[in-house]
């Protein structure tokens, strides 16, 4: 991938941002066992934006949750920047999430009593950073999403798109390098949704990695690779667009 060449480290030297191997997750309900994920193997490198798509219930959310360590796989391995999640205790997992993994939920869960900057600073403060230091980093993260001017605004004073960008800033803060986003454009109008995808694209072009679940093909189109899920299985995936693409093979001469 050409994105990884922007980092000084060649892609083979650094472990992937996210690596799932043979991941299976089942749920038990009153009627028996339901397979949410079955034998999922997926590698996402720094600089890559991967879209997960597929029908409701195909396993997109579960895949994101197990990748973030918010849910546990029954079998298989999951590694974030080479660290195996199953080797971590709860405290270690929480620390990895605070430092390396940003998670954007469809419903933003911004705390109404806190300003935008305080919401974004929260994970750093939970990680033991001083309030002042956390604030500086939070404002920097808000600047990345174009919201530095709203640092002191409270969530209810912000539009839906602005709140979504605050949630993304909270996922990015402190230089976290793996972004997992579950339908981050679901509640947004199409123009704001496009802006959110453009932002995720820009963060990946700057060296982050992101996995985004979406049911909107136009939003999946921003990805380097689109991975199709059905019934908990990866059934297909696209190839990245060619480098220096001039689109010329896509045009036909039409006689008019």
């Amino acid at each position: 991938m050409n994105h990884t060449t922007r980092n000084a480290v060649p892609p083979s030297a650094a472990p992937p941002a996210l690596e799932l191997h043979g991941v299976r997750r089942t749920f038990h309900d009153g009627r028996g066992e339901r397979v949410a994920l079955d034998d999922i193997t997926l590698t996402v490198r720094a600089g890559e934006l991967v879209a997960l798509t597929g029908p409701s219930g195909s396993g997109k959310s579960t895949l994101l949750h197990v990748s973030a360590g918010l849910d546990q796989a029954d079998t298989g391995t999951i590694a974030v920047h080479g660290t195996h999640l199953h080797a971590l205790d709860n405290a270690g997992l929480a620390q990895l999430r605070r430092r390396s993994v940003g998670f954007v939920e469809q419903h933003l869960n911004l705390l109404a009593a806190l300003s935008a900057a305080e919401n974004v600073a929260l994970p750093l403060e939970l990680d033991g950073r001083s309030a002042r230091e956390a604030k500086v980093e939070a404002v920097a993260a808000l600047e990345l999403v174009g919201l530095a001017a709203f640092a002191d605004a409270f969530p209810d004073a912000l539009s839906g798109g602005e709140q979504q960008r605050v949630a993304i800033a909270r996922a990015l803060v402190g230089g976290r390098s793996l972004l997992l986003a579950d339908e981050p454009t679901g509640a947004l109008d199409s123009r704001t949704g496009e802006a959110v995808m453009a932002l995720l694209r820009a963060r990946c072009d700057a060296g982050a990695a992101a996995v985004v679940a979406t049911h909107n093909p136009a939003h999946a189109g921003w990805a380097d690779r689109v991975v199709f899920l059905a019934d908990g299985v990866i059934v297909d995936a696209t190839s990245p667009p060619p480098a220096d693409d001039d689109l010329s093979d896509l045009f036909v001469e039409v006689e008019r």
Partner: protein
Amino acid sequence: MSVRNGLLALLAESPKYGFQLKKEFEDATGALWPLNVGQVYTTLNRLVRDGQVVTDSGHGADPATNVGDEGQKRYRITEAGRDELRDWFGTARPRLAPERDEVVIKIAMSLRDRTIDTLGIIADQRRSTTETLQRFTRARSRGEPDDLGRRIALDAVVASISAELHWLDQAEELLTASTESHHAAGARPAQPPTRRRNR
């Protein structure tokens, strides 16, 4: 009609040369529809024949545009041309049925033969169409942000590709539901269960 009216719109600004019209047409629409020079001159000749455009001899270059050598034909819009252009801008184009769509025809034909894996055709098409969508989305994000014409032209392409992907999802759902109801009724499934294809 789009090339004809597009050229009239460009000529309404000022008299222009053929190759200049080709370039301006392409630039105005984000280079999405390349024109060959022959197409430009064929259309200009028809516009001249119909009295909507006249040529002037174009001695020397136009000082404003600094293009064209002596002897090249320069084209100028007439009042009749301006009338046609006003009509074009002033009249909505009826949304006609789409042109024959090979994918629609392929999927419809595949339903007639039980040995053909229609769900597999849909999956392959979805992957291929998504790859095209990724390429246009990337091209769109790399343009000059202020180039509104290009942005709008590429948005149109992205929207129509997305529509095909929505339709493929619908076709898959419809076919899956129909296969399941056949199955429930005791009939043999019309399609082999091929959704779980690991690549």
